[in-house]
């Protein structure tokens, strides 16, 4: 039963991947989908370290970037007819070089976990990023390295000139890479990685070298990061120092953590959400990064298991058959909480407009309402809404908590 369901999930995902461009066929949505696909693989590979192996890395972009650089160099070699390779296999080149580099770096950095590992990864990341300005031949300096994906031999008549073709290429790799990473987590090496994450010392006393276990996860993560880098090279046809610097490394940490490190699909959710925020929300507000920052800090503090983790903690209530008891409390707290959130966003947006907007203009559109920021009334109204909603949330939360407790209480028939 579980087996069939698992298979169905994969088939459904594949179908969705194939059908998505039918739903969103504009140039813009295609480019967003492409970006999403690349980010999904990258975030999943990062979670092989953080979520599954317990290694906090501040330099994972190194493997993404190096894989990408090798892929874009390969594109140029293909164009110069040094060797020939269909574009569709380019991510493999990225992956192999990501792996190669991970083998080298991992051989010393995985000796320790925790803070030491984090610091080494940071140091390596900064070093490689700084090197990119030195080895101009390889990294292309400030300009980066560009390539042309259409110069490669055609693949069954596809030359990948159109974004749609690139989409299917990326979607194919997303499916394969996700499947492989999922399967990896189900192998002895993947399972023991979880054990080492939880308790490295104990793992040593059941016959496993924690260092070797981390090393294997690290190499796997390097490989898939390289694959993502190769896809980046195909999609954007340019690689620069930013692809391997600390900001890219930080972003992948951000989205993985927000999505949730404890569940396999967590990073996928994080990657999709963050890409949407980055591409869509940024059209509506200049403050989107502030919101992302808020979301991140709130995630670390209040839901360290991430968004998917929050969903996962409902499994007990679900198994108890009491999920329904939670619906009403969720709505009664959720609605005012949403209003409160909107009011806060409104205040921030008004402040931003008031301070940085065009001189002489006072009218702004906020949630489809035209607002004059030079008058006091919008401020007072928004503050009042925020205060009322805040009070309601505070007053209604205890009810939610007690409903939560009763929904999660062990059933009587369960043994204690």
């Amino acid at each position, binding site marked *: 039963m579980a087996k069939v369901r698992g298979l169905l999930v994969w088939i459904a995902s594949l179908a969705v991947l194939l059908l998505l461009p039918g739903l969103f066929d504009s140039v813009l949505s295609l480019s967003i989908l492409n970006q999403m696909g690349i980010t999904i693989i990258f975030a999943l590979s990062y979670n092989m370290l953080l979520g599954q192996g317990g290694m906090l890395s501040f330099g994972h972009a190194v493997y993404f970037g190096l894989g990408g650089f090798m892929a874009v160099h390969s594109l140029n070699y293909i164009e110069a007819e040094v060797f020939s390779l269909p574009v569709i296999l380019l991510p493999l080149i990225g992956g192999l070089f990501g792996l190669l580099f991970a083998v080298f770096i991992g051989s010393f950095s995985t000796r320790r976990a925790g803070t030491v590992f984090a610091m080494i990864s940071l140091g390596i990341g900064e070093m490689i990023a700084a090197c990119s300005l030195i080895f101009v031949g390889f990294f292309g300096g400030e300009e980066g390295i560009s390539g042309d994906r259409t110069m490669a031999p055609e693949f069954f008549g596809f030359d990948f000139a159109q974004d749609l073709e690139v989409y299917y290429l990326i979607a194919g790799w997303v499916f394969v890479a996700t499947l492989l990473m999922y399967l990896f987590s189900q192998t002895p090496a993947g399972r023991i990685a979880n054990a080492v994450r939880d308790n490295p010392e104990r793992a040593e006393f059941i016959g496993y070298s924690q260092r070797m276990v981390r090393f294997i996860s690290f190499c796997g993560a390097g490989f898939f990061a390289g694959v993502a880098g190769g896809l980046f090279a195909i999609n954007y*046809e340019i690689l620069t120092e930013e692809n391997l610097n600390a900001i890219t490394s930080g972003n992948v940490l951000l989205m993985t953590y927000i999505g949730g490190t404890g569940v396999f699909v967590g990073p996928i*959710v994080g990657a999709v959400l963050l890409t949407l925020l980055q591409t869509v929300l940024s059209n509506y507000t200049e403050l989107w990064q502030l919101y992302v920052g808020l979301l991140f800090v709130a995630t670390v503090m209040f839901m360290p298991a991430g968004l998917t983790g929050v969903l996962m903690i409902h499994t007990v209530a679900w198994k108890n058959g009491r999920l329904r008891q939670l619906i009403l409390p969720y709505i009664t707290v959720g609605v005012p909480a949403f209003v409160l959130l909107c009011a806060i966003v409104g205040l921030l947006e008004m402040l931003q407009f008031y301070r940085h907007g065009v001189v002489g203009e006072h009218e702004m559109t906020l949630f489809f309402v035209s607002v004059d920021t030079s008058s006091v009334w919008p401020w007072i109204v928004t503050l009042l809404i925020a205060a009322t909603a805040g009070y309601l949330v505070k007053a209604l939360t205890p009810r939610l908590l007690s409903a939560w407790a009763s929904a999660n209480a062990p059933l009587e028939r369960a043994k204690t």
Partner: protein
Amino acid sequence: MSFWRMAVLVGVLYPMCSHGADAVRIAFIDPISGTFSATGTNTLHQFEFAAEELVNKKAGVLGGRRFEIVALDNKASPRESQIQLKRAIGEGIQIIAQGNSSAVANAVTDAVRKHNRRNPANRVLYLNYSAVDPALTNDKCHFWHFRFDAHAEIKMAALTDVIAKQENIEKIYIIGQDYSFGKAVAAAAVKFLGQKRPDMAILGNELHPIGRVKDFTPYVTKIQSSGAQAIITGNWGADMVGLGKAIVDAGMNVPIYTYYAAFDGVTATMGKAGKGKIRLVHEGHYNPVPTKRLRDYHSAFKAKYPDHDLSNQRVYNVIEILAKAIDKAGSSDPLPVARALEGIEHTTLGGERVFMRREDHQLFQPLQISVHTDEGIEFDGDNSGFGLRTEESVPLENTLVETTCKMTRPQS
């Protein structure tokens, strides 16, 4: 998961699918955040103002269509520009304006060329208003790229004419940013000084990482102790502010020949210490103002944006020439507009004749060499009382240079 992903996508993407096709939208892809945000933001305002003042207030183009500037932040990064370019294209924008950093321009021009070749139905036009790596209108030229600023070699030719006349300067130091533009400036300086003043010794030819150096003191120490009698630099934005600050702090008292040592904080930083020392090559006119049109325009800009400057005078040329070309073409589609732009002639707000050369899509225009001073200044920079006063003018004929560009033109 799949369901959620779909639901979210439907919800968020749907509102973006429809856009009014009324306005002619121009994507402004430049740094609005990061180290060079001051430069980008300032130029953005100039674009918005020019579009409003020169087009929208005058019945627009094609009988009433407005210009709309869509700002896209590229953080001065080639990669991010690529992403923003895709986004602009995705939103159906057909005209791209970009200027800050030739590194970015090289990536954008390459991407535009590829995109237009692959998507003949959906082409875009690239208006380069400030990236002056000579390669862009030489080896890397293509039909869809138009440059409105004189490139690094043209400017250096004018600048070295002035330097060559300074008999007392025998030792000179070149410092610039480590990318194609900085390298082009240095190469041009070495080339022209070698021709015009073979006796002059170039003591140093140094490149520093762009946008990363926060304290230029060590560089200035080095320049100072080399015994240089003059400095040439192409630095712009924050890198010019930093360099200028270190020079002032060290009390160096030598002439500095520059491309962009004004506005965006540079003028305020140099202040009194830079008086009479900084020479800058530029298009357009700051002080004295040659025409009433330009004076009115400049005053109106300062009235609307008291904290910003009309730092890039070429911006109003971009907008006016584009509007002219669109009206001439009778369409805002890239191909007819590009054809109309080729060889277009125009009289600027400052009353100068300029033309877009057909062979390489390089705009040729008179250049000015100005000095940083507080005397005879009507329009200052950074509200500091200091500004640029024209010392010498280079007529259009003297700015003509040859090109290696071999343009191929699309048939349809």
